[in-house]
């Protein structure tokens, strides 16, 4: 190979400046992305924060056009829907997550994992239509129908997060348990799941956060109700659904309350996500120090 005489790369200044220009462009894009989102957050916090009051949490909605009243029916409805939909979504999510973590390369587990990811992309309105067809047509509108729709949307998040949490448990911990002669299932319930508990709680919270703000499927299943929820077999209201009703209504007072509702909903979701983050972080630390 002939020796190449060393020479300066004359294009370097150009390339360097292209790089600088590119970095500038990327930074501008970040700013462009943040502006609308920050604009929205600002409104939710300002309008929502200023519209919040005690009666928002304690009172039923006032008749159309009148001031006052609150979202107590919707808040209670959401608080009822969360445990009910968890009863549908969490068993499927956690148990299938355990299976997938244990049987990583088995073909069936791969297929189930793929289907889980596909269902994760199911439009929420479709979940609503399915729950409508399965439950509302034979039994009528009810909190149960809404919970089935939300459970459908909840479990893929829980499945994948549970799987990740269990995979984080180091193999030697499991081997140590098995070395003591216990069967696999006992090792799972006594050793592995307690070690991964933070991760599984995270999975649950992410699942709840995923569905807490859903509106469209609830519109087709729980219908809405101006009263406090009584039986889970009756129509109820929910926070996002009532925000929608009030936002699309003609009254300023309604809009004000819709902002307050959005503020509360946003706070719930931020809180769940933040807690999930902190728990994941602590699980990571515990596992790496063990």
């Amino acid at each position, binding site marked *: 190979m002939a020796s190449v005489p060393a020479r300066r790369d004359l294009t*370097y200044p150009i*390339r360097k400046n*292209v*790089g*600088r220009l*590119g*970095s500038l*462009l990327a*930074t501008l*894009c*970040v700013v462009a*992305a*943040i502006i*609308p989102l920050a604009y*929205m957050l600002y*409104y939710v916090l300002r309008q929502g924060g200023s519209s919040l009051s005690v009666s928002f949490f304690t009172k039923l909605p006032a008749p159309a056009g009148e001031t006052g009243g609150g979202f107590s029916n919707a808040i209670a409805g959401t608080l009822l829907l969360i445990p009910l939909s968890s009863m549908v979504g969490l068993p*499927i999510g956690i148990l*299938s997550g355990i299976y997938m973590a*244990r*049987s990583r*390369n*088995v073909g*069936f*587990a791969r297929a*189930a994992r*793929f*289907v*889980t*990811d*596909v*269902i*994760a*992309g*199911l*439009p929420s*309105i*479709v979940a609503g*239509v*399915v729950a*409508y*067809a*399965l439950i509302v047509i034979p039994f009528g509108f009810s909190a149960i129908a809404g919970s089935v729709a939300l459970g*459908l949307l909840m479990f893929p998040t829980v499945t994948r997060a549970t799987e990740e949490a269990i995979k984080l448990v180091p193999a030697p911990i499991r*081997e140590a348990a*098995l070395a003591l002669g216990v*069967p*696999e*299932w006992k090792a799972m319930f006594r050793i592995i799941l307690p070690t991964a508990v933070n991760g599984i709680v995270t999975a649950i919270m992410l699942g709840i956060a995923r569905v*807490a*703000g859903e*509106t*469209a499927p609830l519109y*087709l299943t729980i219908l809405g109700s101006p009263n406090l929820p009584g039986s889970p077999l009756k129509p109820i209201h929910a926070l*996002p659904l009532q*925000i929608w009703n009030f*936002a699309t209504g003609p009254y300023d007072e309604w809009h004000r309350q819709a902002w307050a509702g*959005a503020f509360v*909903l*946003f706070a719930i*979701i931020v809180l769940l996500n933040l807690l999930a983050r902190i728990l994941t972080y602590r699980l990571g630390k515990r596992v790496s120090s063990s």
Partner: protein
Amino acid sequence: MKDPYIPATFYDAALGSNVSVDGDSEADEFTVGGKRLRQLEPATIEGLRQLQEEADTVRAPSREPHALAGTANLGDRIFHWVTAGFAGLIIAVLLLIVVELTWQSRLSIARFGLSFITSSTWNTITNNFGGAPSILGTVYSSLLALLLAAPIALMVAIFLVELAPRWMRFPLGFFVELLAAVPSIVFGLWALLVLKPDLIAPHIEPWFIDHFGNVPMLSGLFTGYPIGLDIFTASIILSIMILPTIASISRDVMLAVPNNFRDAMLALGATRWETTWKIVVPYARSGIIGGIILGLGRAVGETMAVQMVIGNHQAIGPSLLRPGTTLAATIVSEFQDATSDMHRSALIELALILMLVAIVLNAVARLLVWRVAR
């Protein structure tokens, strides 16, 4: 290649096909010549498994057995079948969704057949239904949103992975992920009560009409009234909503690019920017495309935010400044007030179409993202 840490008898046993490996590299049990061994190191297991695979490929490729299906412990067998049952339930759920939606839309499928997709009539009085306005409206608004969001999202991901100072990465990344979790009703509320009345209707749309309304070629895109309840506003809010999704997935796949590649490129004298575009982006390409398709999937299925600002009008046309509809928006707007069984059946058929589109988009996207992640 023989591993010195594995006793020779293991090799003999393996090559003599007397070894059965239960499950994957996570399994802890082996049967060697009828004897069960437990508590092996993962490396040992992996080595044995590879040996067995070599042996198997010479003979006949065997299927990987389930980890616990064959063990003697009753509790383990129950545990295995219960968890596997729930995993199977997931597959059953998907089938149930498809079957149920098809069954509930049977009236409409039988009456309109394939013309449901091409027909643009939507008449609740004569009970004549066609999905074309919804389908085209979905395609139009989603693609427009993608066109606006994807380039910016990719740049945001590049900034987060390659350019941002270290202290900025975590908070900014968390912010992006959090935004991906904001419910669509909150976006819709903001679009309806702030974005539309404060910005789009009084400023942006009149500006479009003034400047492009009479330009040949472009005028078709900007005919109509600047009321703000139209395809344009829907596309804007959609693009804002899918941006965090695309950005966070692109960031994840770009983080998966091995640092050696970057270092090698930088060592050759490339700038950071060149490294990004010639090494990182091509390496992560299919994952980035996957992220974009997932964003498209989210835009296609988005309901509330779109329904609140798109105007909900069954019409087809190129103009951005006209009320339109999407599959999801039509369903949610009309479902409670469906006037007849045929009407309801047609709406459920729209849901079926929406689901099939979303499933295909998601399946393709996941496969693409997996290719990078692995």
